[in-house]
């Protein structure tokens, strides 16, 4: 079923352009492999908040997969700055913690949604996207 879905998506529209932001290289690598295998186009990776903002303006991705816990800025602040410049940008927050650990901040962040790192998949992301 998942394959059919993906195949349909692949058929009807071009691959979504994704920017992966996470300070752990191992996660970025895994995420790229996973998402690309599910038809996403990972256009870039950023290891911290500042890089994420810069790359987003350069690469103009459709979707930013944004880790909340970053070494400089946290994910919420990065989301706020991205949305300030591109209000229609789709942002999905990720974390190895679960959603409850952040209370209402996720909802207030302007992001489309939240996925725990262990549950990351293309299908999970598609649910939030228009």
């Amino acid at each position, binding site marked *: 079923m998942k394959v059919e879905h993906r195949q349909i998506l692949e058929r009807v529209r071009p691959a979504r352009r994704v920017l992966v932001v996470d300070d752990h290289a191992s996660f970025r*690598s*895994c995420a790229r492999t*996973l998402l690309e295998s599910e038809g996403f186009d990972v256009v870039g990776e950023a290891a911290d908040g500042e890089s994420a903002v810069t790359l987003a303006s350069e690469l103009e991705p459709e979707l930013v997969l944004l880790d909340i816990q970053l070494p400089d800025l946290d994910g919420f602040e990065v989301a706020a700055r991205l949305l300030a410049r591109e209000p229609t940008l789709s942002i999905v927050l990720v974390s*190895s913690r679960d959603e409850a650990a952040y209370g209402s901040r996720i909802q207030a962040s302007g992001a489309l949604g939240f996925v725990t*790192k262990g549950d*990351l998949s293309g299908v999970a992301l598609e649910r939030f996207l228009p």
Partner: protein
Amino acid sequence: MTETIFARAGPDERARTAAAALLVFGAAATAGAVYIIAVSRIAPSPVAQSLLTALVCLTFVGTGVAALRLRPYARFGLLLAAVGFASLISVLHEANDAVPYTLGVLASNIVFALLVHALLAYPSGRLRTAGERLVVGAAYLNVVVLQALAVVFDPLTRYHSAHPRNLALIDSQAALATGLYELEAAIAAALALAAIVMVARWARAATPAARRQQMPVAVGGAIALVLFSLGLALTPVSSRAGLIGFGLALVAALALPGAFLTTLVQGRLSSAAVGELLVELREGGEAPGLEDALRRALRDPSLRLARRTPDGSYRDGAGRDVSTRAPDGSVSTLIAHQGEPVGMLVHDPSLRLRPELLEAVSAAAGFALASERSLETVRRFEERNSALLAAIPDLMFRVSRNGTYLDVGVDDPSRLLRPPEELIGANVRDVLPPHAAYAWLGCLEHALETGEMSSVEYELEIDGRRRCVESRIVPSGPDEVVSIVRDFTDKRDSEAELRRLAEEQAALRKVATLVASDAPPEQVFQAVTEEVARLLGIRDAVLERFEEGDWATVVGRFGERAEDGFALGSVIPIVEGFAAWKIRRTGAPANVDSYEPFDGELADRVRSLGFRSTVAVPITVAGHIWGTLIAALTEGESLPPETERRMQAFAELVGLAVASAQAREELEASRMRIVEASDAERRRLERNLHDGAQQRLVALSVGLRLAQSKIRDAPEVAAELLASASEELAETLTELRELAQGIHPAVLTEQGLAPALEVLAARAPLPVELDVRLPRRLPEPVEATAYYVVSEALANVVKHADACSARVYAEHADVHALVEVADDGVGGADPNGGSGLCGLRDRVEALDGRLVVDSPPGHGTLVRAELPVRNRVGDGAVLVP
């Protein structure tokens, strides 16, 4: 035998009348007898006979009458009078008429019986024994019955031819009559002998006084009876010889009235002795003197005087109780005065026969004893009063209504405002200060008006000292009072001192309670300044804490000008010469007597606030001068004695409060550091888990899912992904193991400190010499702390010491565990620097242990932790051997 009699009064009116009648009758009878002799035809020598008759009769009757007037001798008086009258009967022998002649012959011998009676009844007139009564009765029967029997058979022809006829003659049988006369004479002689024996025995048994009194009577009576018996015996032979015998017997019998008269005269002499006794007593005699005087007065050397004691017994001069036991044969006479018994005389029983004397002497003795008793009472009263006066160390004045001193009583004149001679006659208004005089005179008026005691207190200046006195004023007459003045300055001072001490204790308790209840030091400082000022009676007290440099901060302040330049929190300079400066230099209490010599802004400020001088004591905390407590005095204020000592007590409490607060702060800081260290450790763990194992597991999860998706389409890719996942998993496990080791090494928990230290030494990147002397496991907290001390110290050696080798030593000695880590590195470590060492110190101190870091530059570093080893059981701390 002892008997007690009361002395009684003497003659009464009836006796007096009877005596007068007897005297008249005796005189008439004598006259009749003389007449009979004078006209007698047969009287051989009428003149001599008349004289003898008159002498005998009048002597007996007269003496009898004299005795009759004295009640105890009345009976005896009658007996004497009877003898007198009976002696006249023999005169009837010379009568010319037959009737009186016959009567005379019939009754001629009655006088013999009367003589026996009188002799045995002397001097009371009473017969005492049955034997006496028998003898006397026999004598009467003999001279009446046998005489009458003889007379009725006697023709009486042998006497005189001119004799009148015997009218009683029944039958003239001269031989029978003579026989009867001889029998009568024999019986009379026997009775006379018996009477003499009785008198002799009686005299022998009598007391000396009685014997002295009775001897003439006994001797005279005996002679009389013998002569009379002789006369009776001779009468049948020769009537003349018989008459001569009778006459001589009567003359001898005169001893009876003679002895009795002597007794009476002695009584008079004794009365004189009573007079002398009274004179002696009036002159005042001691007890032995009184007894001697009584002996003399009563002529009884055996007499003893007993006094009545308060318990009702009677004791003689030697203290013997005579009320219950008196010498045999003696009698006691109670001595009363105004109806109250006051004593007792124990005396010879013969004195009972002289009751008037006994009474007089008793009355005199009563008077003497009562007077003695009164004197004793007065003496005791005086003694008590003297003792009381001596015991009251007070002044006494007698003052008239208008305030004039009339008299003054004082043992030490220096206590008076003026010398006694100047004081008497002076007025209270001129002597006492006006306010005291006013109060005193008001009190005097009140005492005189109400008649009750009133008192007033006032102050006087005596010899330059202010004295507090109290006057108690009582009326001692209609217009005068007696005032007792008591100086209670010392008492007031000691009471004030006691009060001060009590206040000091209360203030100290108040502050100590604050300290003990861990009140904030600021509150203690404030309370101390307030209590010190209040206790010393001053307005300002300051508590200063010394700061770095020459500065001090006001941390406690009490005073009316508390908002001045020395307000709470203000920082003031420590100026040379000021009390704070001295204390900081010497650590001893200091004072400033005057601020006048000082220049500068602070001195100006002190002066402008009116502070004249200060007394200050140091406050010491853990051996260091922490600050000072200052009592500041303004003009007119003075400090009580021992001010420094009192302030020192408060300063010690301040020191205690500060030390306690510091200890508390240190403890809180230590706890905070422990909590912070624990939080930091948790954060570090969380970060480690998040960044390490968790990320690896996330990647693993993603990789496995990817591999799963590739198995069918691209199995070779899936196999690569699974291989990679397997590696990732192995690394994750290693990482987790290391992490767990960091949290708490399993070897420590499972095998104890010694193996754990071996692991630490083995892992260290430099050679570590290990010397562990732990015979048994230590309590868990001690093991853990010792482990982290070694672990952290070795980590520091590796990081900072630049050392070639290290040495680890651990031992369990007595009640301590000791761990040491020494290195041969560069040294110079800061014992208080670095969160690592600080965290170790907190951990060690949390177990009441001690951490020492010795790190001289260039000589390596030694870290030593001493940890008390206790095994907590319940509330008690039990030492583990």
